[in-house]
């Protein structure tokens, strides 16, 4: 907003900025508390534990697979939601957001219940396709919990592209697919990448659905958040804190990336 004449500092600017500063201070105090509590040598020692290394490894592998799936689904779904209007499209749009507002444990319970139905039992009976208490179940939970963020980002990115540019591409000899690949997709690139980063960061932190569907079995279905919970449940705060700091670092890197791609204002500004 351009500066207007008159005093630079007034009641509204003081009040709103006070709230902003207070909240940021609260977040920084929490991070500082973690950092002061954790001794560096303890953190390094914890990070050398086999179960912790396995949890980090499994978290990275499963979230990488989830990320690929999220991109494969979110890009076309975001495009469809952005470009096509049909009966029920508003309802579809709302359902896409459902995993964002649902309590995570409800997603886990719903998945578990689904795999107790006849359709779910049939899927479970396929030898290479079991989800309950398996790594595939972890990926499924991470996917359900994170894909909505990427779809929302994808839709916002495509919404921001003038559809007439796609039409122009058609007059210039492109098929619909070429217009998508040569115009829409590259123009939406920053938003799509930022959405993928957001979804990945979300997937890294998924805990309760994974706990319900895949369990918390040491060295088998144990992720970073699972380790934090397992360690806390037996009163060992240092390992929990060490992994919390690892996840905090991941979240910070993801947020910086998203801001660098300049997308947050487009997602939440719509």
């Amino acid at each position, binding site marked *: 907003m351009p500066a207007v004449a008159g005093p630079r500092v007034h009641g509204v600017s003081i009040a709103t900025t006070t709230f902003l500063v207070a909240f940021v201070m609260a977040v920084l105090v929490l991070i500082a508390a973690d950092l002061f509590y954790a001794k560096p040598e303890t953190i390094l020692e914890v990070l050398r534990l086999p179960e912790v290394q396995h949890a980090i490894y499994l978290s990275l592998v499963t979230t990488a697979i989830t990320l690929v799936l999220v991109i494969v689904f979110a890009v076309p779904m975001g495009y469809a939601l952005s470009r096509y209007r049909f009966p029920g499209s508003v309802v579809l749009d709302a359902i896409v957001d459902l995993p964002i507002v649902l309590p995570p444990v409800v997603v886990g319970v719903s998945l578990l219940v689904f795999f107790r139905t006849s359709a779910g039992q049939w899927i479970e009976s396929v030898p290479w396709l079991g989800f309950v208490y398996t790594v595939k179940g972890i990926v499924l939970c991470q996917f359900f919990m994170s894909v909505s963020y990427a779809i929302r980002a994808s839709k916002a990115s495509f919404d921001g592209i003038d559809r007439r540019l796609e039409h122009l591409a058609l*007059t210039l000899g492109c098929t619909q697919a070429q217009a998508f690949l040569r115009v829409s997709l590259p*123009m939406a690139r920053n938003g799509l990448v930022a959405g993928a980063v957001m979804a990945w960061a979300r997937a890294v932190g998924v805990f309760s659905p994974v706990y319900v569907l895949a369990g918390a079995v040491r060295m088998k279905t144990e992720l970073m958040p699972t380790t934090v919970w397992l360690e806390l449940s037996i009163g060992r705060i240092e390992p929990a804190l060490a992994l919390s700091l690892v996840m905090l670092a991941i979240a910070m890197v993801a947020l910086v990336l998203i801001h660098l791609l300049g997308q947050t204002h487009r997602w939440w500004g719509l």
Partner: protein
Amino acid sequence: MIEIRDLTFRAGDFQVRSVSLDVANGEYFVLLGPNGSGKTLLISCLCGLLRAESGRILIDGQDVTHAEPRLRRIGYVPQDYGLFPHLNVAKNVTFALRAAGHSRAAALVKAGPLIEKLRLGHLLDHMPATLSGGERQKVALARALAIQPRLLLLDEPVSALDGPTRAEVIEQLRIVQRDVGVTTIHVCHSTDEALAVADRAGVMIDGRLVQTGRLEELMEHPASPDVARLLNARLLPRA
């Protein structure tokens, strides 16, 4: 030869009705009309971006009424030029050639004469956001002409330009059109602009093409008070 026969189509609540028009090969036809008369919709329908309800569009005898836009070989320059903001000038100009399967180098060689004719050589690496209005217009024109179109559609091509640039671009438009020999339909509001370029003109009012002919004839013998008002109103500043 462009032949439009009883073309009727709809965009929302607005209907363009029973438009019939012949444009000869190499002719420069200007379509005049007030805002909201359906001029832009008509050229959108001609290039296949709006579906025709009835009637026919023939280009050199080939019926393209229901053909996909990409198969019509119609060059289209929209009002805001519609340059692809993520591509530099070279990639914008060669866009259609690349889509047709030419390599980057071959496309640039093929577009070379156009780039030279429109004096775009020094701008090839520039992004659209850094260009002036006149430069954007020339890039959009080069991009549309690169497909060697059978028909060139210009939607108010100079409306966003200032006075001196507008005169220069109008002159260049006419020169390039004559050089290339492409049949052209140019949509605008300004009778002065039409006088500068048109072989023939037509007036569209409320979704109907109400009169066509040489512009001087239209001004001398307007078919209705609305046409007279439109053309005379435009002539007032000159008088």
